[in-house]
């Protein structure tokens, strides 16, 4: 704290420093203020949603539209003669897809901050540096987590029912939330790398669309041509969607859970670190 009038201010004694001490000091400082500063930045981004509710349109209308389209329009054709109720099959996929679209806004926001020169202000402040990215990531993840329950409500209205055990059913939204938190870091990395809102938005589109459609999100992988199955089988989205589907409807979890956990760890630890590092290197 340094509130005083400029007249009274006298230079503080500069702590004796060696590069090692400075580095340690920086790390301690970063962790000391990380939570508070991230909260502040997340607050800022949540305020954006409050002031500009139309940015939430796609998060709110998206699941309604997709559930309607796939359940009623395509569902009759896709679900005919299968051993599952198509809406039960569909919901986890739509959950993941819609939330991916929501958290992918992270990068667009970061890029537009960078473009507008906002980040210069933040970088000249004594705040934790990771908080600029962290705040955005937390805000979009929070929105996407809340939207899970909204999507589930619509789905139940359209006739979806849970058939899994209570505990997995309750934990399912959490899996979606944590996965999307990881993807938000990927989006942050995109934003920091391209530094231009339009490019970020376009790259987001070209990442999200193929990943979500070339997976078990809407149709069983077995109905795809062989060469596409090969991709869909290794697509992380397939594993997450299958995990969530089996949590909601019952079925084997373990194999999907391990792979999902691996991807989540990779996204949060690997991609998150890379994004933070790239942000710090900006000059």
């Amino acid at each position: 704290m340094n509130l005083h009038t400029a007249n009274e201010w006298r230079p503080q004694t500069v702590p004796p420093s060696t590069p090692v001490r400075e580095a340690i000091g920086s790390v301690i400082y970063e962790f000391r203020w990380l939570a508070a500063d991230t909260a502040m930045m997340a607050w800022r981004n949540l305020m954006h949603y409050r002031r500009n509710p139309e940015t939430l349109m796609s998060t709110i209308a998206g699941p309604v539209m997709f559930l309607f389209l796939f359940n009623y329009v395509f569902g009759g054709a896709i679900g005919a003669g299968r051993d599952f109720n198509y809406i039960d099959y569909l919901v986890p996929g739509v959950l993941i897809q819609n939330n991916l679209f929501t958290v992918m806004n992270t990068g667009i926001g970061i890029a537009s901050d960078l473009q507008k020169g906002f980040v210069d202000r933040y970088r000249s402040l004594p705040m934790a540096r990771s908080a600029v990215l962290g705040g955005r990531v937390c805000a979009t993840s929070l929105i996407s987590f809340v939207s899970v329950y909204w999507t589930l409500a619509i789905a139940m209205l359209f006739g979806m029912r849970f058939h899994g055990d209570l505990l997995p059913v309750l934990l399912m939204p959490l899996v979606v939330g944590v996965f999307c938190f990881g993807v938000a870091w990927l989006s942050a990395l995109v934003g920091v790398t391209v530094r231009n809102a339009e490019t970020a938005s376009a790259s987001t589109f070209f990442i999200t669309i193929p990943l979500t459609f070339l997976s078990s999100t809407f149709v069983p992988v077995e109905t795809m041509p062989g060469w596409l199955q090969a991709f869909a089988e290794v697509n992380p989205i397939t594993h997450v969607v299958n995990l969530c589907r089996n949590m909601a409807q019952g079925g084997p979890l373990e194999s999907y859970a391990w792979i999902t956990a691996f991807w989540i760890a990779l996204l949060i630890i690997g991609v998150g670190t890379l994004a933070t590092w790239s942000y710090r290197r900006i000059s």
Partner: protein
Amino acid sequence: MDNAIEVRQISKSYGKVVALENVDLNVRRGSVMGLLGPNGAGKTTLVRILTTLLRPSSGSATVLGYDVVRHARHLRSYIGLAGQSAAVDDLLTGRENIHMAGRLYHMPKREVQKRAQDLLEQFDLVEAADRSVKGYSGGMRRRLDLAASLVANPPMIFLDEPTTGLDPRSRLELWDVIRNLVSEGTTVLLTTQYLEEADQLADEITVIDLGKVIAQGTADELKHQAGSEFIEVTVRDAEETRRAAGVLSNFAENNECDINEEDNIASIMVEDGAPLMVQIVRSLDAEDIAVANMAVRQPTLDDVFLALTGRTAEEAATESEQDQD
């Protein structure tokens, strides 16, 4: 320690492009330093180095005794930066913008609230305080940006082209705000392309061109480099301008007379203009030259820039823009 800023041989280059070359600069505590130069001269680069946003390629600099590279983290608590882009959040209200900056300076909540109210009053933003910034005018945004950078009451403040793009009235208002700041003892480093702005606000001026410091001193000292005073005589036509020039050159310090043919103006440089006026009028009258207008003019910083670089500030700006392309 009397210097708030000490810059020693700072250079910064991006690949082959040299943005700053061996810059030296001292800024006394409590003074206003004007960093003057055309677009692309390196002013913003220097400010970015001093505000820890950019690492210099070589050389060292301290601000308030903190090394800008080694003590960057400590330094950030004691400086404020208001940039040309007016980094205020459109969707937040004015008050929320200040509040956020205060919290990120790690001030306690209550203190921030009090300080925000003070600043809003001081900057004449109380009425608009709880409206979102989207509807603010350009001048209001700059004032808010400045207020946000002052929230922690930093003893050192950097203003990067604070009035670029503002209308004349907003510019005058912002000048007043800056003058108030200085009277409270804040040290200010201000960059500008406007020679008048530096003249109005700065105690000392550093002229920077193509990444190098080309002159340093008070506004008066710099003006003396360009010459003392000018006498300008406006007549009716080109023919008379030439004849008037013949008369005037006898009174000039350097026996030379500049002719502006377009506006029929002949001007000379003199030590002290006023006492010469009567003699000049008489001599012109004797030659039967009718004087339409006559004035003694102080040299502007434009004259200074011309004297220092052989180019006008505008030409220099165009050149460095071409360099960048």
